[in-house]
């Protein structure tokens, strides 16, 4: 008897959901074993983590606000990455594009924040971030289509180059450097002028930032863009087969460049939101969202509604780990990364079993 892997002809949605549930359960069990090895009770830890410290908290509104601060950049970045991934374009440059957006947004904030009305400043910040990050996407897409330059590695290199650019800005005291505080000897990023800080609707003691509403609007727009527009259809065709797209008379160069511009630009926008929300920038402004976004997009199988749910869950995981690690000295927020990795592996395995099945073949020589 031998085992053989064959591709399933059809995948039943019930099976897929079941596999995913099993996968997530396995991750929690594995994470629990890790926790137990450090002498932490996994049940208590998971409870603290999943309730993001809301139980017994005097300021639950602050926890929700903190959670949303993680959610907005992650949601937009994951959506943007899924646009690229749908075309099988490996934009793993989320980190670099995010930083680019944040730098150019704060450039606008520092230069124009005092002299213009709030709505104009915020809008200009978003536009600056959108275009600057989009240009990075444009260049990588151009290289990919014209010269077949490996986009995975190009975007990877750009992540590090942009990281050192923001470090340079943040660590260099100089007359030209308007990003830094002038009243401090050490290099410290200055705060934005009041007009460049993201505002929101106040409900009781909870402040719903406009960036949250904007990110949800972006999700809806991306959904309809992919499902209902000609451009969305073109993305699907190019992703399926470049040759098919060519035979159908599509302009592959135009479609690729446009989509990757959009993908990078949206990530830049997320960077602008993050900068405007915190009212300043920092060298770790990305919070690894470029990497986490890849995982979220893939966990969600590039489906927009699922991305919404998964990025919320991952935000709960990250915020919850921060909250829970306050009471456990042996463990820090990196546990969130560990859990994300475990989820990812479980879902990758589940993905296999929903596409393939293992069958037994009778004798030794019959394959």
């Amino acid at each position, binding site marked *: 008897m031998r085992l053989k892997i*064959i*591709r399933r002809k059809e995948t039943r949605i019930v099976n897929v959901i079941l596999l995913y549930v099993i996968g997530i359960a396995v991750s929690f069990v594995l994470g629990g074993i*890790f926790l137990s*090895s*450090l002498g932490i009770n996994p049940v208590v830890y998971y409870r603290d983590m999943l309730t993001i410290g809301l139980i017994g908290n005097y300021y639950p509104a602050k926890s929700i606000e903190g959670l949303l601060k993680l959610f907005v950049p992650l949601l937009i970045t994951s959506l943007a990455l899924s646009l690229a991934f749908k075309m099988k374009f*490996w934009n*793993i440059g989320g980190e670099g594009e995010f930083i680019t957006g944040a730098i150019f947004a704060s450039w606008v904030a520092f230069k124009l924040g005092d002299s213009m009305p709030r709505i104009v400043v915020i809008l200009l910040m978003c536009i600056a971030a959108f275009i600057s990050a989009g240009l990075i996407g444009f260049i990588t897409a151009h*290289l990919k289509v*014209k*010269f*077949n*330059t*490996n986009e*995975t*590695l*190009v975007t*990877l*290199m*750009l992540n*590090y*180059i942009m990281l*050192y*650019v923001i*470090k*340079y800005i943040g*660590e*260099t005291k100089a007359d030209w450097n308007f990003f830094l505080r002038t009243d401090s000897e050490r290099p410290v990023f200055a705060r934005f002028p009041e007009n460049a800080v993201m505002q929101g609707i106040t409900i009781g003691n909870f402040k719903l930032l406009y960036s949250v509403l904007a990110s949800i609007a972006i999700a809806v727009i991306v959904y309809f863009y992919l499902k209902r527009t000609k451009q969305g259809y073109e993305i699907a065709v190019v992703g399926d087969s470049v040759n098919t797209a060519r035979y159908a008379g599509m302009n592959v160069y135009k479609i690729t460049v446009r989509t990757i511009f959009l993908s990078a630009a949206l990530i830049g926008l997320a960077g602008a939101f993050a900068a405007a929300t915190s009212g300043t920038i920092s060298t770790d402004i990305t919070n690894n969202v470029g*990497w986490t976004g*890849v*995982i979220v997009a*893939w966990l969600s199988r590039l489906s927009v509604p699922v991305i919404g749910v998964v990025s919320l869950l991952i935000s709960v995981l990250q915020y919850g780990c921060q909250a829970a690690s306050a009471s456990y*000295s*042996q*463990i*820090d927020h*990196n*546990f969130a*990364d*560990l859990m*994300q*990795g*475990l989820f*990812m*592996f479980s879902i*990758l*395995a589940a*993905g*296999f079993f929903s*596409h*393939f099945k293992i069958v037994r073949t009778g004798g030794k020589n019959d394959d």
Partner: protein
Amino acid sequence: MIEVLTLFLFNIVIYSIPLLYATCGEIIVEKSGSLNLGVEGTMAVGAVFGFLAGCRADSLPVALLVSFAASALVGAIFCIFTISLQANQNVTGLTITTIGVAVYFFVGNGLGANWPVYRDCTRLVAGVSDLNIPLLSKIPVIGKAFFSHNILVYLAVIIAVLVWVYFEKTSFGLRLRAIGENPGAADSLGVNIVLYKYLHIMAGSGIMGIGGLYMGLNMGGTFEGSNCWINGYGWIAIALVIFANWSTMHAILGTFVFGFFNTLRIYNMPLATTFPKTMGWLSSVPAQVFSALPFIVTLLVLVISSIKSRKSGRSNAPTAIGVNYYREDR
């Protein structure tokens, strides 16, 4: 004056060696047709477990063995997902980096106050003390700079040469290259693709792990809660594979160039003050430029080589890289 130059060259070697391990490992992996983006995580796992086991047993061989085995295990996970379960290589690699670095912090923080004191592990410390190669180490400047290093430095160069010989001169290496170029053709010739890929990816990952261990030992062996020991070297290694054009012999040179940038970042001031006329300008270059240089150079190499290979139609990159092989799709 001479001392500054010697020390500068000496440190270039020190900084380039972990990259050489990682690059050799990744070249083996990529020659088999897989792009493993998990180098950073693989190195982190090898570093932390190799270091802990080495301190516990107070022995360098144990440290080497454990770091190799731990990282080979990570390589096996990569194989299980990308070869057996047909998962996407990029995503699997990135997940390995995420989880590997998380394991590093998890284990490191979990130990807390019980973290071993590296200096007390006398035999381990002695194991990586500098060895003077007879005669050669007596040559002025070059002797101290190149022939008076710890054993792991020599081991890296030996591995690089052996891997080159393996690929160029043995039939096993030839078959592996065939898998990386055209797995369908290799399969039809009766090469056991799954076995070959598993073994080589695991071996390559194990070598990355030794690079990780080297970094841990080099950093004085104290756990760093904020920055992982590996600190981006895994990503540079992925870049270096392209820079070295998938040859481990070129990798020796390539890692030296990258080590040069890294050393410049730290030694720009001594160089500028010792040679004010010729290298005085170094003091005005910001440190971040030196840090970013490896990535900028790789980006340029990447772009230029792709433009050139578009024109000439030739590249050393394995043709089937990044594409999973599923026999029935052939």
